[in-house]
């Protein structure tokens, strides 16, 4: 119950202190609104009904985020679509870059077939000579 109330508190902006939700704000109005939330929950109202009640009273900007319906879908929909579009674009760019890369004469690819060769790489980054003691298959 209290947990549900606090989650509703976090979705409502205190109308007199911009930017703070009513669970953060310490002013009188926020305190009253917290009281109303608990009263209505006790009466058996749902979360949406309570939010609607406050929207009717204070306007839509009392909600901490736009509703996921109607015009508000624009707010929620644009970011994922944009990121998705960018991901698709990136995919094609990478593909075309790889094709361009394959037509070139290339340096031999790294032999990365196992962990040992990875350690050889670490050694190389450290500037060490290749290590003989690392096993017969690596003897050079």
């Amino acid at each position: 119950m209290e947990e549900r109330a606090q989650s509703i508190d976090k979705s409502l902006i205190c109308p007199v202190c911009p930017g703070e939700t009513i669970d953060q704000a310490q002013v009188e109005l926020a305190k009253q609104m917290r009281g109303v939330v608990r009263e209505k929950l006790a009466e058996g109202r749902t979360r949406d009904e309570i939010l609607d009640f406050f929207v009717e009273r204070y306007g839509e900007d009392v909600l901490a985020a736009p509703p996921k319906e109607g015009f508000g879908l624009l707010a929620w929909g644009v970011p994922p679509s944009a990121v998705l579009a960018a991901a698709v674009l990136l995919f094609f760019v990478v593909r075309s870059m790889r094709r361009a890369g394959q037509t070139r004469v290339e340096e031999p690819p790294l032999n990365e077939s196992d962990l040992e060769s990875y350690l050889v790489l670490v050694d190389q980054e450290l500037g060490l000579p290749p290590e003989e003691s690392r096993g017969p298959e690596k003897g050079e």
Partner: protein
Amino acid sequence: MADLGSISLIIALALAAYSAVGSVLGKARNVPALVESARYATYVLVMVLAISVASLVGAFLSHDFHVAYVFEHSNLAMDRVYTWVAFYSGNEGSLLFIAFALSVLTALAVLWAPQSARDSLPYTNAVLMVILTFFLAVMASMANPFEKLPFPQADGLGMNPLLTHPGMFIHPPVMMAGLIGVSLPFAFAFGSLLAGKTGDEWVDPGRTWGIISWALLGSGLLLGGWWAYTILGWGGYWAWDPVENAGFMPFVGLTAFIHSIMVQKRRGMFRMWNIVLINVAFGLALYGMFMNRGGPVPSIHSFGASTLGWVFLMFTGVGVLVPFTLFFLRYGTLKSARTLESSLSREAAFLLNNLLLLGIAFVTLWGVVYPLISELIRGTTVTVGQPFYNQVNGPMLLALIFLMGIGPLLPWRKGSWTTLGKMLLIPGLVSVVVLVTLVALDVRKPYALASFWLCSLVAAGILLEWARGTRSRHRQGDNYAMGFLRLIAANRPRYGGYIVHLAIVLLALGVVGSSFYGTQRDVFMAPGERAQVGDYEIEYLSTTATPKGDRIEFVSTVNVYRDGTFLEALTPQRAFYPDFQMASTRAAIRSTPVEDLYIIPSETLEDGSVGFRFFVNPLVWWMWIAGPVFILGTLVALWPQRRPALASIRECVPPVRAYPMPGTPDEAGETES
């Protein structure tokens, strides 16, 4: 005093304009003497602006209420130590601080510019001086910190009480220096474009200054969170509010840049992309300054605020459009030396990292812009607040942590799935063990579980690689401690990056713990009463009220018990400032690695009972630990890889090469015998 500041401000404006014009003309017309004189102008500017800063500080210290800015932002009653804070508590002083910081950074950048960037340095200097000229001109014409009132006042209005906090000594200057610091990598990129250099000349200074301003921004954000946590009294540290976002976006943009620039440094790729990225980051930083200084954020002083906002907005527009235009003009010449070979490679991982980071920056910007769109189209104002950012940015931040676990394991150029699988095996097992343990401990929220799982994957991956590298060094004859240090020293950008990644993991632990498992309770208590919060029992003893200069301090004393045993006495405080009709709280926090018990008094009733707000915030402790770790990692990554500095570890560092090739004998090998 103030006159001195005023005069030096005008001199500074003239010098900055001269330095900008002089270095471009001198370079274009091939007059080395002019270029050199412009460079000296850049150095002298530091001293001239230092005089300005000193005279403003002096005006505050001597309570010179003839100066409007001092009158508006301080009074006789305030603590002397907060004079430095009052200095940048308003627009004019902040602008002066930004200008001073820019002049210092520019002088250092010009002084330390590497050989490769010397040729285009006059242009880089000119870009920075144009930016500085803008700030100085704004101050001289519409926001002069030394402007005088018609006649001196006896006392000032005082400073916003929320700013009287130790965090305020470092948070604003670090933040402002970070925001203006983005100009440096930008100026190196843009300067080399202006000079017609389209290769990798700007990469080294661009990366160095990019990391410096990025570290400043990161520390600034974290300090801001700490300030909010201890004084704003709502138990949180981050609220996605417009001003926080304004600092967050350039930080995210720069994060993309300092990753992507590594690809150009090592592989000569992404030349165009890096220029685009630094332009974006610079634009976001300008926007950040616009938001904080003269933006639509309510401010106690209305003087010229709206005009200042417009001027900043216009400058932001120019700062974004001009470089992009130049970029498109030079587009054809910016071909990269190499191209991507495989989508399973470090390069590709960096691209994905850029996608996610820019995505986060875009979402944040969208959240800021959307209310304006809604108002334009529908005429209703809406709020885009925490629920939006948490739900949209949350998954992307998680994906980023996942990438942080995979990306560093991938080799440059081309990796293989089998190797990756083998390398992920142990971290994967560790993270599964962590996951199962958490479920057994009754952690059931899917989001939190996913976060902890990914965090343990990243941490295990990093620690495992350190262990492997150290063991490999140990086989060379070093003891473990020495081997570890040599490992770190041998590839500082890489291991510094790992340390920063660990800091991010620590930060994520704190964020996830406190946002999913925090509890909150409001209680009114009379002296002697007890209340239960989480596992804690709190006994309220008494409150004392003490008048202190500009405020009345209410100090409450509470005893904290757990399972019947006394833990400690805490003293949450609240101060009321009659002049401002405002209260500020100072939370009492019992901080342990497991959880914070956080207590703030909200009000005192006439019958002597006090309203308390209690929080139990799990894992927040780790967030503040992340700060020093973050800075340590940045320092390691930045520490110059010069030979003299490496005397102690001798020649175990190979000469810097584009890429070590397998099969070819390593020429540095002969030294270690």
